[in-house]
């Protein structure tokens, strides 16, 4: 590095200056991420209402294992994860491959249009979707006019359809976001690789699976990890579209933690215990995703 070529005193001085550049950021992240994480761990061993908390050992963790609402929220979140993330990633990949064709007309328009949902706030689009998918909402009206369905679908009030509505909503909001990452990665692939493949007689189908997918693997890994983390944190949409209902059919873990802390009688200790379950799940899933992507090399 540069410092190696310079004198010792400058190196020491530079080290000091270097630390002063990063100091505020390090302190802020320590104060608002790592300190609360430790606090949450301590809290998870305490029980009580509101501010009156006392140590009760593992009791919160025992409660967690028999908490039906927690398992419902966990199951819902995994349903979103297993169905929505693959659909969105495949859709985004597919669209970006179509858009990557330099001879395509209206490329800029298509790209902007598909990316547009990303500028809306989660709350704003959730409220719009809530009305679009209402029983008397526009989606049902249109489907009935087109004679695709005979009776209105209970998008929001039926446990099955409510989950579908949430999945449609998240897919609408985030597909364009992932597409941008794939598009930029695609533009970095040397076109001569495709030309060589074409000369060898490889079909577009084969080119996609033998060239595009392997070349994009790091980005696919990146987007699948960020999408997984995003889905595990799902909150705004569920609260504003279905309120977690009907019953607890769409309740997410984040919303459950929110309810435990700020909606029901505040049980901060138990809420912290539930929140640690998400941390563990995120760490475990990220490790698995790294593993899976690494093994295929």
């Amino acid at each position: 590095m540069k410092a190696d070529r310079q004198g010792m005193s400058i190196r020491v001085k530079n080290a000091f200056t270097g630390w002063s550049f990063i100091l505020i950021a390090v302190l802020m992240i320590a104060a608002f991420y790592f300190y609360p994480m430790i606090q949450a761990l301590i809290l998870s061993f305490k029980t009580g209402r509101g501010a009156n908390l006392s140590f009760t050992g593992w009791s919160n963790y025992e409660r967690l294992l028999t908490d039906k609402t927690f398992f419902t929220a966990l199951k819902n979140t995994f349903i979103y994860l297993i169905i929505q993330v693959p659909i969105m990633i495949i859709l985004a990949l597919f669209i970006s491959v179509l858009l990557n064709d330099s001879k395509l007309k209206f490329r800029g328009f298509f790209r902007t249009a598909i990316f547009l949902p990303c500028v809306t706030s989660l709350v704003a689009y959730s409220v719009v979707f809530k009305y679009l998918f209402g029983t008397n909402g526009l989606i049902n009206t249109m489907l009935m006019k087109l004679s695709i369905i005979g009776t209105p679908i209970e998008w929001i009030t039926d446990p099955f359809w409510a989950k579908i509505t949430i999945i449609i909503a998240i897919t609408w909001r985030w597909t364009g976001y992932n597409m941008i990452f794939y598009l930029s990665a695609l533009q970095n692939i040397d076109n001569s690789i495709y030309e060589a493949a074409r000369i060898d007689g490889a079909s577009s189908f084969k080119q996609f699976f033998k060239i595009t997918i392997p070349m994009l693997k790091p980005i696919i890994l990146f987007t699948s990890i960020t999408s997984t983390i995003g889905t595990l944190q799902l909150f705004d949409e569920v609260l504003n579209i279905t309120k977690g209902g009907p019953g607890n059919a769409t309740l997410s873990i984040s919303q459950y933690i929110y309810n435990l802390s700020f909606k029901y009688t505040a049980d901060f200790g138990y809420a912290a215990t539930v929140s640690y379950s998400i941390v563990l799940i995120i760490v475990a899933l990220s490790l698995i995703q790294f593993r899976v992507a690494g093994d295929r090399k």
Partner: protein
Amino acid sequence: MKKAKRIFTYGFLGVASFISIFPFLWMVVSATNKSVEVTKGRLLPGTYLIQNFKHLLESTDLGTALSNSAKISVITTVLAILIASLAGYGFEIFRSKAKDVVFNILLLSMMIPFAALMVPLYRMFANVSDAAPFFGIDSKVAVMLPTITTAFLIFFFRQSSKMFPKDMVEAGRIDGLSEFGIFVKIFMPTMKTTYAAAAIITFMSSWNNYLWPLIVLQSPEQKTIPLLISNLGSGYAPDYGLIMLAIVIATLPTALVFFLMQKHFVAGMMGSVK
């Protein structure tokens, strides 16, 4: 064969674009219609925009919410890009093994979900509420502090600093500039596009932030735009036209920022994964 493929490509992209844009169109059209007409599924612009706007101003504190959101987002954005760019530059230009370790620890914070932080953060701010209301619950400072510094933004600036020519740092030192002088006078003007991209990303996420303000802000006069919209949307007899107008107004700033600086925004997003 080729023709079929082309028809499929344009057809598919056309449908995808339509689905992406349709909720926006519906939102804008509905903002000009009466609530009844929105429920009837009217898809043409109406003449009720002014009335909707009047009702919105009468029944909600739109101005206060807009000004709260603007204050929070602007201050957060300015501080965030300042702190993160200092750090990103510091990590890259004054590189050492110890700093690499610290950097990797900072990156770990990206794995921590906000749900795991909200309870302890709430308690932290609640504890100082009585002694220092300026920092406590229901204050703008409490909304801003935890969101100002993110590992993502530091990472983003560090990646960009790699493209910053190191010779310019040397040249600045020879000219007798202090290290901070080099940062302010050489790095900042050179990296204008990086700053623009970072500012857009930060402004958008701050403007749209919902969960943390929902927890921290309690009095009506502190409400931000997403909180106002969420409240409007949870009513039993919703005035659809009015709500859609509120959503259009809330979306305008981020949509405008996006369209004016689309190039930087996309470049910024791409830069973050390179």
